[in-house]
């Protein structure tokens, strides 16, 4: 195989116009599988969550999970899709050992939701509309582990282990229409779309949509056409691009690769490609000698799904505010820039900050703690912000203690440390660690008197009107009280005692 010369990205875009298609699979967070009553809990012993139906035993039959249908409809509605009045499941016939029936129960020409769109916001605030072709219901396959080969793929493996716990977990496949007009921003659009979709899925509460756990998986289809032409070029299909960054890189790589092939007078082969996290490249999958023929036909074991219009409208009423709309609303409420909002979003802090504000903190304080100290701690421990053992209510309490002068920032950080260490609620940590600011005038008075006595020269300067010199005395008091004094109050007391107006 000849190695394709990659064309620098900007050069590729100078000659070609990219067209993308994104297919995203979302594992629904239903308690049971799509067609049987088995648990969908992750991490159980292999094949412990199986039954005759999801093992495809002779005679077993599927029954549709109503919650799965409901989730599909809610996703469809949130994507501004039409919801089918009547649709069927279909069998997609192909052979693979991790698919117990050797057909996947899916939907074909009658998807539950179709013709929608999702507006995504790019980093500069521009809105790009991604048209949705369809969202349909299907079941996941089992998981194969190929043992003994060099690549971990089935080719060359000595044997394979099959775990059917995942077989039958409900999936929603969301397919875009061809995404045109993104131009040089194609990689950014792709990433923003998947990110927005993930936020939407999470906001709907139908899945945790954790890409690293395989709960959300993305296939990237890409083709190039010469600038100014209409006809689509031949596309490549890059499978299992499973992080936001990878989506962006895969699009970028494929643009450069396609341009290289086309510039050299070559032809793009319509093929499946694998994405490599290490270097962001793609390589060709196994070349299929003939086009796969899935022999779709309506699933005779299931009755058609015909969601009543009243039910669909009822579900429409349960839709949450769209993540993009919500983000913009919060950004305005918090009075921050697009860029700051993006950082908050990237940090996974939107919900946390909102909840902290709801618990009584002002927005600046809530943002400061989550994006500052707490983000640093999460980063250090390599965990997500939301995973930190501190609640928005606790952060709000700490902010309140700072606001009323009970704590200063330095002490507040120690309280946070205590809460994270499991020492209890913020007030308990303050109590146990003895972190309360000393603002009691009688206790401070003695320390102030001592400082004045010990620094007579400075005191004189202050009496003479050099108020700025008070800082040195404040420092001395703070030192004497091991930082637990309220610095502002200390300053007031010093000036008072020296008979100077502050």
């Amino acid at each position, binding site marked *: 195989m000849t190695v394709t010369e990659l064309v620098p990205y900007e050069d590729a875009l100078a000659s070609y116009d990219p067209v993308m298609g994104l297919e995203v699979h979302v594992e629904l967070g239903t308690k049971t599988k799509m067609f049987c009553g088995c648990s969908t809990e992750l991490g159980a012993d292999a094949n412990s969550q199986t039954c*005759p139906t999801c093992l495809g035993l*002779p*005679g077993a039959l599927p029954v549709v999970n109503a919650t799965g249908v409901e989730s599909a409809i809610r996703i469809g509605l949130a994507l501004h899709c039409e919801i089918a009045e009547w649709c069927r499941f279909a069998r997609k*016939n192909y*052979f693979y050992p991790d698919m117990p029936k*050797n057909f996947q129960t899916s939907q074909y020409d009658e998807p539950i939701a179709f013709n929608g769109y999702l507006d995504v916001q790019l980093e500069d605030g521009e809105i790009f509309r991604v048209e949705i072709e369809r969202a349909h219901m299907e079941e996941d396959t089992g998981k194969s582990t190929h043992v003994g080969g060099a690549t971990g793929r089935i080719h060359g493996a000595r044997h394979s282990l099959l775990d059917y716990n995942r077989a039958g977990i409900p999936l929603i496949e969301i397919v875009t229409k061809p995404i045109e007009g993104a131009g040089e921003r194609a990689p950014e659009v792709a990433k923003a779309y998947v990110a927005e979709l993930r936020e939407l899925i999470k906001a709907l509460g139908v899945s945790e949509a954790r890409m690293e756990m395989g709960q959300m998986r993305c296939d990237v289809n890409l083709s190039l056409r010469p600038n100014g032409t209409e006809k689509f070029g031949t596309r490549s299909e890059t499978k299992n691009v499973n992080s936001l960054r990878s989506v962006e890189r895969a699009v970028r790589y494929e643009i450069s690769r396609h341009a290289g092939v086309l510039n050299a007078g070559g032809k793009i082969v319509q093929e499946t490609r694998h994405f490599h996290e290490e270097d962001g490249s793609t390589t060709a999958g196994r070349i299929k000698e003939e086009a796969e023929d899935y*022999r779709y036909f309506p699933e005779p*074991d299931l*009755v058609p799904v015909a969601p009543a219009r009243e039910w669909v409208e009822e579900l429409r009423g349960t839709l949450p505010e769209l993540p993009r709309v919500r983000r913009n609303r919060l950004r305005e409420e918090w009075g921050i820039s697009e860029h700051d909002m993006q950082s908050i979003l990237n940090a996974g802090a939107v919900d946390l900050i909102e909840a902290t504000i709801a618990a009584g903190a002002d927005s600046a304080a809530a943002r400061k703690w989550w994006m500052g100290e707490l983000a640093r701690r999460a980063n250090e421990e390599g965990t997500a912000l939301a995973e930190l053992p501190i609640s928005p209510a606790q952060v709000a309490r700490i902010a309140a203690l700072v606001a009323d002068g009970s704590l200063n920032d330095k002490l507040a950080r120690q309280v946070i440390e205590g809460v994270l260490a499991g020492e209890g609620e913020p007030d308990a940590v303050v109590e146990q660690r003895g972190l309360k600011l000393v603002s009691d005038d009688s206790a401070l008075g003695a320390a102030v008197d001592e400082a004045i006595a010990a620094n007579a020269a400075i005191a004189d300067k202050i009496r003479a009107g050099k108020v700025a010199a008070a800082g040195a005395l404040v420092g001395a008091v703070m030192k004497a009280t091991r930082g637990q004094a309220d610095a502002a109050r200390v300053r007031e007391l010093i000036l008072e005692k020296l008979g100077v107006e502050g």
Partner: protein
Amino acid sequence: MDIIKLTAAGIAEKIVSGELTAVQVTEAHLARIDAVDEKVHAFLHVDREGALAQARAVDEKRARGEKLGPLAGVPLALKDIFTTEGIPTTVGSKILEGWIPPYDATLTKRLKDADVVILGKTNMDEFAMGSSTENSAYGPTGNPWDLTKIPGGSGGGSSAALASYEAPLAIGTDTGGSIRQPAAVTGTVGVKPTYGAVSRYGMVAFSSSLDQGGPCARTVLDAALLHEVIAGHDPLDSTSIDAPVPPVVEAARNGSVAGMRVGVVKQFRGEGYQAGVLQRFDESVELLRELGAEIVEVDCPSFDLALAAYYLIAPSECSSNLARFDGLRYGLRTGDDGTRSAEDVTALTREAGFGPEVKRRVMLGTYALSSGYYDAYYGSAQKVRTLITRDFEKAFEQVDVLVSPTTPTTAFAIGERADDPMAMYLADLCTIPTNLAGNAAMSLPCGLAPEDGLPVGLQIIAPAMKDDRLYKVGAAVEAAFTERWGHPLLEEAPSL
């Protein structure tokens, strides 16, 4: 008293009254199996211990004074297509040789819950594909009327078990006639209930949209009693009908056709129909008229296309249903010597495990569903299906039930059509439209064909969910014929 010649209703009554014990009844039937099944080969597996344990449990229940169900203690022969926990289920195929299902079909469970004694599993055409039981991987079954003739198919084991008095009740499945045609050629009663009436959960699929389990018996009332036990909504089968079971037992106890309009389908006669079959059929129509029915000729033009549509739809669905038999998880595995790939082992397993008829239909179906051919084959067949359903609807606007011969000929000789699939397929000419439309039908004996002395079946067809009409008409016809003959038809069968 000859226990094995009793009806199911009679046995149940005698067990309740204490005249017989369930163990006595079961032992009598096991003894009959021992005596004749070597010749008949109705059973693939006899569950002697299980049957006796079930029978003992019934007797203990009675001893404790518990109320017994209407078929408690009555033995039954179960077609080997329903899963039975701990008992082999082969579907007549080598590919499931040695497979012990870990679960009971809903139907199996209902039989057990009703204290019906399951004697064992009966022979069948492999995956229910056939009309003679010759396609069983485990050898053919003989027709008790003449052991050189076929007992019908695919449920030939069940019909032969009834006709040879090995069991008073049996279960069949009917995809294109596999209950009715065997009933017809063995002089027994078989009912294909409305599609969705009997759960398919645990019934190994041949063609999901056509398959329907149903009761087989020697009398109309026995079939009704069994119908009531096995029918009813099952949440494990999405296509199961969530509605009360029609009053079949009441209908069977009150047979009558007085004032009913009975349709004779124009399309069900002509070339290919044996003279003696048509003669007995015409006599049956005459009998219906004598019993007070109004006879109406009805035209169902789409029925001429039924066979062609069936042989596209059924193979298409089976090509997908049978894909799971790959040798990886259960049943036969051939050629796994450590050097071959999974795909090669699957190919070798299927080569060895599937018989020629199964391979033929899987290939037909795979072709019919393939891209570029789907619309012409599967799509057209579905349109024909709609037309047939409409023909039925129109017919049932004029009449209460339809009647026809069940099958164009009496039992043919084993081997006679084995190499001629088209001739074999014609056996289901009259039964297939009902499967395509999803309504209900019964076959019951209407005499012996004069030219060969073999049983002829009368088919009664009712609209969907009007299964009770089959029993009402069937019971009236049965009573009148029995009176005319002086005894049940089966008494004329030679003793084995």
